[in-house]
């Protein structure tokens, strides 16, 4: 075959094999469509290879280390823990590879054709793939753009992968640095900063805003600030990075905070200030796909772009840059292509930070609701009043909060900071997506002793009637 001469046709082309793309491909295949998936690097995308999955593996190991170190008080006598980072990384890589092979085999069994290479749209029904064996041309009836996002860099301080690193680099380190500066106290910063602090690194965390986690329920930020202190992480808020000077080993970072210019020296600087959509260089303009001012692809609730037949999902469209959003949108796009009445509407995207303690939220905070003119009633239940939390040695200040609409009683949001918040939130997601009444939560039996009991108690506390909090106001009523 003369390379480039012959265009292969496909019913559905999925560009990008991350948690949005591969899910879309499998769903489309389930619905009887012929699917070609193009991935330029590894199946599973950032999430599986350099994001959610490997970071959770490291977090697990770091937690385990800390638990062992603090097991004395529980009656476990241990004799010190040593970190063998290369070995941890190897275990993590093996686990990631196993999952990646799982994705690959699922795609194969669903008859999805996987093409390795970099795709570029060349028109509204065609693209090329530049792969290891040359350039191939494809024509499609439908395309799903699932090309994801890349980490933002600090202006003037580009990543070098050695000293100035991003989240991917932080998941591949083979030595535990003595000191680490984390720029950005978001999901990446909190998760990886805490991991290395637990491994023994001296961590300084800088963030530009005056409050920690300003988007979340304000009480969550306060709990987290206290938690960071217990790990010896120094948090600098309201900071502005001025520049970086490379040293023999490491670098000096200059910043201003509370009106003063200061500097810190550290082995590594981890930049986790957000991500931008990968909309450049993939031929969107050739196809006529419109982007908004911020570089996100514009889509309607059916995930369709300005070009009929071309869909976009996940990080390249506006909204939270989270894997589960991408997967959901991938299924919507596949179903719409197959003629089903799917839509991404009325959907609430939950979000989780695997910090210590974990943070998980879904729906509206009280502030969100008030800004939309909705009166709220909220109930908060602290984990320190929950038996199960005690049995797993949680001595933190976390809580579960249920926010409800004061008029209708429906659940607007659930906000958790505490042990296994990432698991507990699932019930909150169902409550919010189903517009459950608060009573639906209080009248459901939650097994004892478990952490999700905190949802039941927080829901009861909306009417000041949680059992494990003394509520004098309702006494005798």
């Amino acid at each position, binding site marked *: 075959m003369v390379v480039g001469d012959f265009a292969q046709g496909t019913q559905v082309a999925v560009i990008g094999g991350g948690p949005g793309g591969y899910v879309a491909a499998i769903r489309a295949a389930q619905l009887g*469509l012929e699917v070609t998936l193009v991935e330029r690097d590894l199946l599973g995308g950032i999430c599986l290879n350099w994001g959610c999955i490997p970071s959770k593996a490291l977090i697990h190991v770091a937690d385990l280390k800390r638990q062992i170190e603090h097991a004395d008080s529980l009656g476990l006598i241990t004799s010190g823990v040593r970190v063998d980072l290369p070995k941890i990384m190897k275990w993590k890589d093996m686990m990631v590879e196993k999952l990646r092979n799982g994705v690959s085999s699922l795609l194969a069994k669903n008859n999805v054709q996987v093409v390795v290479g970099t795709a570029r749209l060349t028109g509204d029904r065609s693209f090329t793939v530049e792969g290891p064996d040359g350039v191939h041309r494809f024509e499609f*009836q*439908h395309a799903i753009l699932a090309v994801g996002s890349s980490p*933002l*860099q600090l*202006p*003037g301080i580009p990543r070098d992968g050695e000293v100035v690193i991003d989240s991917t680099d932080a998941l591949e380190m083979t030595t535990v640095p003595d000191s680490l500066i984390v720029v*950005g*106290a*978001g*999901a*990446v910063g909190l998760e990886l900063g805490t991991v290395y602090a637990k491994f023994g690194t001296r961590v300084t965390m*800088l*963030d*530009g805003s*005056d409050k920690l986690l*300003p*988007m*979340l329920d304000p009480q969550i930020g306060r709990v987290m600030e206290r938690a960071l202190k217990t790990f010896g992480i120094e948090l600098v808020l309201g900071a502005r*990075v*001025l*520049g970086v000077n490379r040293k023999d080993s490491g670098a000096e970072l200059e*910043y201003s905070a509370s009106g003063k210019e200061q500097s810190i020296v550290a082995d590594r600087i981890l930049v*986790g*200030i*957000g*991500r*931008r959509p990968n909309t450049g260089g993939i031929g969107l303009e050739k196809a006529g796909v419109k982007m908004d*001012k*911020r*570089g996100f692809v514009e889509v309607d609730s*059916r995930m369709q772009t300005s070009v009929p*037949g071309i869909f976009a999902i996940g990080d390249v469209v506006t909204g*939270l840059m*989270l894997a589960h959003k991408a997967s959901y949108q991938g299924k919507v796009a596949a179903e*719409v292509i*197959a*003629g089903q*009445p*799917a*839509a991404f*509407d*009325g959907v609430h995207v*939950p*979000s*989780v930070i695997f910090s210590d303690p974990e943070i998980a*939220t879904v*729906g*509206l*905070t009280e502030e*969100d609701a008030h800004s*939309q003119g909705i009166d709220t009633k909220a109930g908060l239940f602290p984990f320190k009043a929950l038996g199960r939390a005690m049995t797993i040695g949680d001595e933190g200040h976390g809580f579960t909060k249920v926010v409800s609409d004061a*008029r*209708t*009683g*429906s659940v607007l949001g659930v*906000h958790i900071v505490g042990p296994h918040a990432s698991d507990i939130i699932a019930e909150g997601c169902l409550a919010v*997506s*189903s*517009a459950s009444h608060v009573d639906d939560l209080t009248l459901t039996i939650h097994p004892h002793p478990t952490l999700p009991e905190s949802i039941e108690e927080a829901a009861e506390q909306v009417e000041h009637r949680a059992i494990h909090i003394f509520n004098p106001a309702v006494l005798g009523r």
Partner: protein
Amino acid sequence: MRQVFRLPDIGEGIAQAEIVEYLVKVGDLVKADQPIVRIETDKAVVELPAPFTGRVVEIPYVPGDTLNVGDPLIIIETDGEVSAEVFRQAADMMPKISRPDEQPAMTLHDPSIPFPGQVLPAERVLATPHTRRLARELNVDITTVRGSGPHGRVTDEDIRKAISQIPSAVPKAPTAAAVQAPATAGFNFEKYGPTRRIPLKGVRKRIAEVMVRSVSTIPHVTHFDEADVTELLAVVDREKALAESRKIKLTILSFLAKAAAAALKEYPALNSSLDEETGELVFKDYIHVGIATDTDAGLMVPVVRDVDRKSILHIASELQELSRKARDRSIDLDDLRGGTFSITNIGAIGGNYATPIILHPQVAILCSMRAQQKPVVREGQVVIRTIMPLTLSFDHRVLDGAEGGRFMNHIIGLLEDPMRMLVDVA
């Protein structure tokens, strides 16, 4: 601090608006209450004043963009403390940080940080995801369904009932064609020659919605008749000078409105509305007559209030002002609302008969056509008189043909004998 001014809820069911123009630009100082943006809703163009004093730091949209209630219209830097809103906005504008021309600065926050930051639909529908999907499958707009559960929770049953009640919501077969053709596949007009596509929006879109609703819910009956307006035209001619001295253009339309108001008093069913949800007839003790007005943007129906209590010259003067405002798009939304009956006059354009569509939730509309000289028989003699055809469409759920006919006769009686308006009309 940065304050975000969001598209406010501007009233009755208006969920969207299109930006016509911004009256300020980034960097401008604005004072509270100074008009800053002109927007076009379904009904009219309105100017929105700034809610706070400060400097414009960002204008997120351009003229032509369509916004939903709650979308940010403009961002103004004011003095004061920082709110969560500001952070949200900052997050939205995140990619700014990578601009090389700016002083290296840390971002306010990491947009990959999960945060709720979610906006409920303007009206939150209480329904499970399963019910929402059922609504999509049956092509029912769930936001329009009245839920039968507590606090209006919408059940599967409500969705199924909604289809049987809304004739227009015929369950559409899922677009299976989407598999073969683009998901938007519709008619292939281009096959037969070049075409242009213009989105249906603003006034045009609103007209389309109202008309579909009206025709699909109201069983229309249209009654035809004609009035001898020879004497009435003589009165119009005679009083023109007086009207002109007050800068009023007197036409037959004001007499028609007055006559209709008198007839509506006599036959109040035509001034009522049917509340489809409660199954009640709502009789209104006021008579506000909408007058269909042709504008560049399409049909608008400004409303003259309390027609029964105003003189004909007064009606003419208001009508003149309202149609001017409708045409230059400066009309207040309030002037387009609250009509209890409508009149449409196609006389200036021509034609003998038309079957007007009732403006839901009104129950009747009167249409007058061109008055022309015609040979007619009076007392056994053929004479030339000026005849104006009239048609009345009414809602057969609310009244029957006999009442519609009597209503028309009452109007014709007044038009044919203008003196009676003086003698018999309050």
